[in-house]
């Protein structure tokens, strides 16, 4: 694969971002002036006595890369779980694409265009890479049960059509070689990549990534960053990212929200956050 990114036209009808049209280097922070895609207002979440999230508000704008950072157990993953409906917060509201709700069913969130990857890889272990990514297309496939009985004909046509799309993702993520390997056997790094592929297959508007680069070496991190940026740039997918590697966070994100003990302690551009004393105390340790 020589050029970056997959075949745009097939993957999404969205316009390539303006900055990228001329092939100029990707734009500096500040792109995220778009409208608010998702707003979290005063969300609180408790598990028995444990306050995982207390009264957190922030927003994610269309097209930006939004990082969520914070010490271990700060409630980052829980936040993502709230956003895509797996946890139901006791208080607060969430507005996605203009629709406000206090809780939601995960499958509805998925249908509205929220996809995610998981901190502890949550792939379908017994299935191949290809099948894993194909499940990401589940929502887009229309042929019902009775078509499926007779796999040839329309069901097959549909299958082939989606397979094309999935092959492009596979191509994009550079995992052709393991297409037919059960993912349980893949090394961790590749699993993370497959998981990203599965999320991408959903053609999400909002992509939630939970520590996508944990356990990767530098080279792989670079690849992963590239994928994330490409997805963000080429298809305008909004990304929310949890990551502990500050290098990655600082380089990739447009804005950063910092949680500690379930509370928001900072919110701003990477540079602002990096200099925030509270953040340094709570999380970074030494200034980076």
């Amino acid at each position, binding site marked *: 694969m020589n050029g970056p990114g997959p075949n745009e036209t097939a993957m999404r009808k969205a316009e390539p971002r303006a900055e990228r049209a001329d092939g100029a280097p990707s734009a500096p922070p500040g792109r995220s002036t778009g409208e608010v895609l998702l707003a979290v207002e005063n969300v609180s979440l408790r598990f028995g006595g444990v306050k995982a999230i207390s009264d957190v508000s922030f927003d994610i704008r269309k097209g930006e890369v939004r990082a969520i950072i914070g010490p271990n157990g700060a409630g980052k993953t829980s936040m993502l779980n709230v956003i895509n409906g797996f946890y139901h917060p006791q208080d607060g509201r969430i507005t996605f694409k203009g629709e406000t709700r206090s809780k939601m069913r995960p499958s509805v969130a998925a249908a509205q265009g929220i996809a995610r990857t998981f901190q*502890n890889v949550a792939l379908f272990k017994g299935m191949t890479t290809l099948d894993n990514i194909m499940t990401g297309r589940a929502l887009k496939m229309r042929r019902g049960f009775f078509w499926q009985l007779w796999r040839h004909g329309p069901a097959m046509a549909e299958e082939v059509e989606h397979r094309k799309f999935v092959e492009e993702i596979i191509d994009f993520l550079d995992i052709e070689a393991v297409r037919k390997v059960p993912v349980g056997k893949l090394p961790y790094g590749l699993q993370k990549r497959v998981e990203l592929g599965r999320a991408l297959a959903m053609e999400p508007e909002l992509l939630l990534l939970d520590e996508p680069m944990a356990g990767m070496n530098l080279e792989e991190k670079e690849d992963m960053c590239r994928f994330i940026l490409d997805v963000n740039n080429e298809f305008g997918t909004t990304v929310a990212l949890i990551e502990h590697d500050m290098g990655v966070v600082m380089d990739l994100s447009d804005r950063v929200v910092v949680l500690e003990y379930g509370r928001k302690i900072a919110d701003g551009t990477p540079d602002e956050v990096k200099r925030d004393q509270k953040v340094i105390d709570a999380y970074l340790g030494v200034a980076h």
Partner: protein
Amino acid sequence: MTILYAIFVDPFVQMAGAPDLLVQALWDGLVSGVLYALIALGFVLIFKASGVFNFAQGIMVVFAALTLVGLHEKGVPAFLALALTVAVMFVLAVGVERVVLRPLVNQPDIILFIATFGLTYFLIGFGELIFGGNPKAMITDQLFLPRGVVDVPMLGGMVSFQKIDIAAAIIASLMVAGLAVFFQNTRIGRALRAVADSHKAALSVGISLNQIWVIVWFAAGLVALAAGIMWGARSEVSFALEIIALKALPVLVLGGLTSVPGAIIGGLIIGVGEKLGEFYWGPLVGGGIESWLAYFIALAVLLVRPQGLFGEKIIERI
């Protein structure tokens, strides 16, 4: 209307009309509950300590009782036979660990579950080969288990308590108490629970699965022996007893697969529930509902608490 009356009013009228029968029904329910619990306890032990759903527990009950009676038939004095049976159960535990569990470490639950089926088959064949398929009478007298009935006049009638049932209740309570303590805070107890959670991680911290497994299978064997003696005294020692072991399953899930007290409470609920159900409501549909009532009681509880009454919460986190 009559149907509603028959379901919602009449049984209670009957209960009030003959309170001695109600008490008797409750007692009978409690006793069979205790006896179910004795079987369920064996399941719990092994499940809690290794995550293995040991289907062979039922046949272990038969096997233990059969060994005891079979040895006695061959002329071994009762208490020596008892001691020998304990030894046999130990050998069985070691054998199971060597041949079945050790090679299957870290396999999915269902694989181990089926392996215990294999064990069941093996034990059936082995037991019948050695002791024959003839039903045998339990040697209750020789073991100085009490026989006879205590009739207590009460509530304008009479309630009869079998002495052997009273003994069963006492033995079961002692076993439960002992095991509960064992699991609670001892070092081994903690290790047992760790093994149930993850074989791999338990190995990595140096817990010897082999040793643990021998311990719990042996303990389960002893529980099986107790259950076998009690059930055998109730009817006879034969392979048909294996069927009754199925009844331990709803008891088990109702109480929670991992809970020792759960096994007892579950047993009592199922025992009493199905007795009352069969006795007061069964006739409405022609009786025999005992065959499935227990499962529906368990199902109803599970719908509210999917991990059973006292089971460990099923962790869902991502």
